Structure formats: C-alpha cells, structure tokens
C-alpha cells in the first residue's frame, strides 16, 4: 500500500512538473487578455442597456441631444467623428505615403533611421500637449491664414461657407487629427513596403526602370493591401482620439455642411459630459456612445490587422 501511495505521489509530482506549472501560469495570464476584452465589452454593454432599450436603433439616427427633455441621439457625434476622421485621412494619407516611399526607397541610407525616428517622435507627444499647441498656435493659424483663401477661392462650395469661430472648427479638428495619424500610417506603410521581396525591385531595375518607376510598378501594387491596412489603422486611431480634438473642434453638437463650423465627436462628448450626467438615461446614453466607439474602433482595427498581417506575416516580420 505504501508503494502505491508513493507512486501515486510520484505521478502527481511528475505531472506537476516545472514545465506544467510554468505553462499553466503564463497561460493564465494570456487568458487574462481575453478576460479583459470580455470585461470591457460586457461592462459597457450592460450599462448602456437603459439607453438601448429606450431609443433602439433610432439612437443612431436621431440628431437631438437634449438633456432637458431627455431625448438623446448620437447622430451629431457619429457625424463629427466620421467627418473629422475622413478629413484627417484625406490630408494624412498622401503625406504618409510620400514619407513611407521616401524613407524606404528613395532616401539615402544614412538618413533613413534618424528621419524615421523623428517622425515617430510625433507619435510620442501626448495628445493634451498637441491640443495645447492646437488651441494657441494651430487654430489661430488656420483662422488667419488658411480659412480666408479657402473662403475666397472655394467659397462656392458649401464646405467652406459661413464664419469660422476663432479657428475652432471641424477643419482644425481634421488637421490636428491628420498630424497625429501621420506617424502610424507612414510607419506601418513603410514596414509593408519593406516586405516587398527584393527580386521584384531587381526585376524592374534590370528592365531599366528609374527609382520612382520601380516603386510605382514593382513595389506599390504588391504592397497595396498592406498600405490600405495602414490607412485603416490610421482611421481607427483618429476615431478614438479625445483630448486634442476636444480642445480645437468647438464642442457644438450640430450637423453642418461647412468645415468652418464647430463640431463634436463621440470621444469629446463623453470627456465633457460624463462626470456630470445626472439622470440614469443620460449616463446610459453616454455609455452607449462609448460602446459604439469601442465597437467601431474594434471592427476597424480587426480589418486593418487582417490586411496588414497578411502581408507582414508572410515575411515573418512584426507589427508594433
């Protein structure tokens, strides 16, 4: 009987070997990641229940945001978020592509690392400091030097009509977002471009192509889906951005055709009004906006990662 007990313990001990325990422990922490994602969604989903039940899908299409009469509709914020982010893309993507191409194909070797480091430094600057700069430097600049010519030459478009209130407008919001997403869009594009196999480039050069032609013919088409993924990543970043946008966009929940009008984004309304929403419905509506924001940015990130991983994982590289 003693021997049976001994071998029983021996079996347990061998099963509970260092390897097993270690793998179990780190596996537990990996599980924590899933748990975190689950918690995030669950918490926001449950707390937004009152609003979802009261307004249903109409929440997405109502443009009234009235805490007095307790009618809440997220449309102005969805509009503000989408338009400012699209505007940011419009401005940022050409620059990001140019930077990515320059730094991976056309620049002299010695300059590549320092220049890419400098661009990434922009991403390291906290949003609130960019917002600070935005209030005191960018907004007056846009008001004084960018708005008047736009108004004079392109004023026939409803986009550029109406007064600009001291630079706090959708346009300024879009510009500041563009500045903030250039680093990530350009660095991911650059990584994608660098995974294009050298033989593609060599083939083009062998045929007598110039540097630019090589890029245009051999590299870009190959990297197309990855670059698209980088663009979507930038879009995802722009959508979730809070502080810098809140400080320059004017915080006015109205839908307007003009880029000169103030606007309001989903992240900004939460930042401004969350601490003070007194009624249960008000709080729930703000949480529902947060939930929408989470879902939208998740979907965008998933799409972007799929596109980028497809290209990068093929070559075994990593994404930061």
């Amino acid at each position, binding site marked *: 009987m003693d021997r049976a007990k001994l071998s029983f313990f021996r079996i347990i001990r061998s099963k509970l070997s260092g390897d097993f325990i270690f793998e179990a422990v780190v596996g537990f922490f990996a599980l924590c990641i899933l748990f975190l994602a689950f918690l995030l969604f669950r918490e926001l989903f449950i707390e937004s229940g009152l609003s979802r039940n009261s307004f249903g899908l109409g929440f997405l299409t109502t443009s009234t945001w009235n805490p007095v009469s307790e009618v809440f509709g997220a449309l102005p914020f969805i509009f503000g978020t989408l338009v400012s982010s699209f505007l940011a893309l419009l401005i940022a993507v050409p620059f990001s592509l140019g930077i990515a191409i320059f730094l991976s194909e056309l620049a002299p070797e010695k300059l590549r690392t320092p220049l890419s480091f400098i661009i990434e430094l*922009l991403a390291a600057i906290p949003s609130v400091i960019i917002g600070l700069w935005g209030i005191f430097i960018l907004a007056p600049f846009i008001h004084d030097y960018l708005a008047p010519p736009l108004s004079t030459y392109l004023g026939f478009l409803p986009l550029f009509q109406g007064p600009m209130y001291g630079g706090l407008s959708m346009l300024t919001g879009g510009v500041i977002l563009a500045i903030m997403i250039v680093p990530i869009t350009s660095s991911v594009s650059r990584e994608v471009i660098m995974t294009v196999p050298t033989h593609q480039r060599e083939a083009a050069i062998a045929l007598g192509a110039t540097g630019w032609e090589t890029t245009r013919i051999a590299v870009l088409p190959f990297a197309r889906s990855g670059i698209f993924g980088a663009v979507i990543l930038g879009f995802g970043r722009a959508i*979730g951005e809070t502080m810098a946008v809140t400080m320059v966009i004017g915080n006015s929940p109205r839908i307007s055709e003009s880029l000169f009008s103030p606007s309001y984004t989903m992240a900004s309304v939460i930042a401004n009004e969350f601490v003070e929403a007194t009624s249960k419905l008000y709080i729930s509506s703000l949480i529902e906006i947060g939930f929408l924001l989470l879902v939208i940015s998740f979907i965008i990130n998933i799409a972007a990662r799929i596109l980028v991983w497809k290209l990068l994982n093929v070559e075994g590289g990593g994404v930061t």
Partner: protein
Amino acid sequence: MKWNKRKIIDRVMSILTAACVVIAIIPLLSILYTVIINGISAVNLDFLTQIPKPVGEAGGGLGNAIQGTFIVVGIACLIGLPIGILAGVYLSEYGQNRFGRTVSFVADVLTGTPSIVAGMFGYTFIVLYFGSFSALAGGVALSVLMIPIVTRTTEESLRLVPGSIKEASLALGIPKWKTTLYIVLGTARSGIITGVLLSIARISGETAPLLFTSFGNMFWANGLDKPISTMPVQIYTYAITPFPDWHAKAWGGALILIILILILNIGVRFVTRRKYGM
C-alpha cells in the same frame, strides 16, 4: 527625349516625397519650439516642488501633479507589467495553437482601444465600486491601455530569439520552463525593456482615462484610494482657463512631461542601438 522625361519625373517624385517628410516634421518642430519657449519661463525649483496656489496668487507649482503621475503610472505598471510580460511569454513560447493565435489577435486589436473608453471602464469598475475617485482607479484605467502593448512587444521580442539558442539549452537538459525564464527572457531582455519603457512613456501622457478616475487634487497625494493630481489632467485643466498665469503653468507642465517622455524614447533607442551594434 523620352528618357529625359522619365528622369525628370523620377527627380520630381524624389523631391515631392522628401517634401512630405519635411512638411510632416514642421508641426513637430513647432510643437517642441512652442513648448520650450513658453514652458521654460514657468519652470523653476518652486514649480517642481510646490502645490498649486489659488487663482490670482503668484507662485505655486505642479509638484503634486508630478508626484501623482509617478504614483498612478507606478500602479499601472504593477498591474500591467506582470500580466503583459507573462502573457507575452505564453504567446511566444507556448502559443502555437488556436488559443494562442486568438489571444495574440485580441491583444493586437486591444491596442487600439480608445483611451476615453478605458477611462469609462475605470469609472464603472473601480470608482463606483469603491465609492470615490482614486489613484487606484487611474492606475487601472491606464493598465487597460498598457497591457495589450506590453503583451505584443514582449511576444515580438521573444520571437526574435534565435531557435538555436533555445535548442542548445534544451539539448543540455535544461527544462523548457527554465530555458524560457532564464535563457530566452535574458536574451530578449532589451527588447522587452524597450517595450516596457515605451508603454510607460505612452501612458504617462494620457489624459482621457484619468479625467474621471484619478480626478484631481489640489494637495499632495495622501493615499491610493483618494483622488490624486496628475500632469496631463492638470495641464488640460489649466489650458482651458482664461488665466494667463495658469496658461504659463500649463506650458511648464507640458515641458516637463515632454522632457520625461523624450528621455524615455531616446533612451530606449540608445539602448537598442548598442545591443544590436548598429
């Protein structure tokens, strides 16, 4: 002639793309310049060591905000680093299965969580549960942002360790867990630390998650379960006031924050450069 035209286009594109880089650097230079010029006049020893004075009284500083940032980021690290690093270890060494791939994917997607949502989570999860704003809640909200980043960078750093090192260790009879813990982690040390320092730099500057978790405090920190002042929130609060002396303090705070973050970022690059002998 056709040949010349192509050469010209090539030149033009080189110049255009270079111009993109130059134009993109302009805002960065403008921001750094503005922060330095405006901030330097506000920063002095008093600024770093005193608490704020009421409106209209001269002097005072952001001493408590600097302290608060260290504390809240410290809490986030205590929560986020173990989870992030150990999860990263799992994903790299044991994660070649459906579970591992799912977790890696989810972690990647979580890196894009909007910071305001992390703050909302901190509020409903900690603030309401304990009944007060606290440094703890702020730390938890920041860790939500930190964990995915640290997980992914740890995973990537570990993956870079050559298989030959692992195999050599296993061939010598060292169990897998010891191999991972001592050999692999040791080799990937600088990459992991890079990831950690970069994530610290990132969360030190976050404002949105702290707006309704750590809240703010006019005095020195006196407990992890009490509201606490932090630099980003203090900068934001001062920035939107109409008082010029508070604007000056906001710039001063911005200068200190940027210096802190730049030290972390540049220090990191310096370290990795030395390791890989570039």
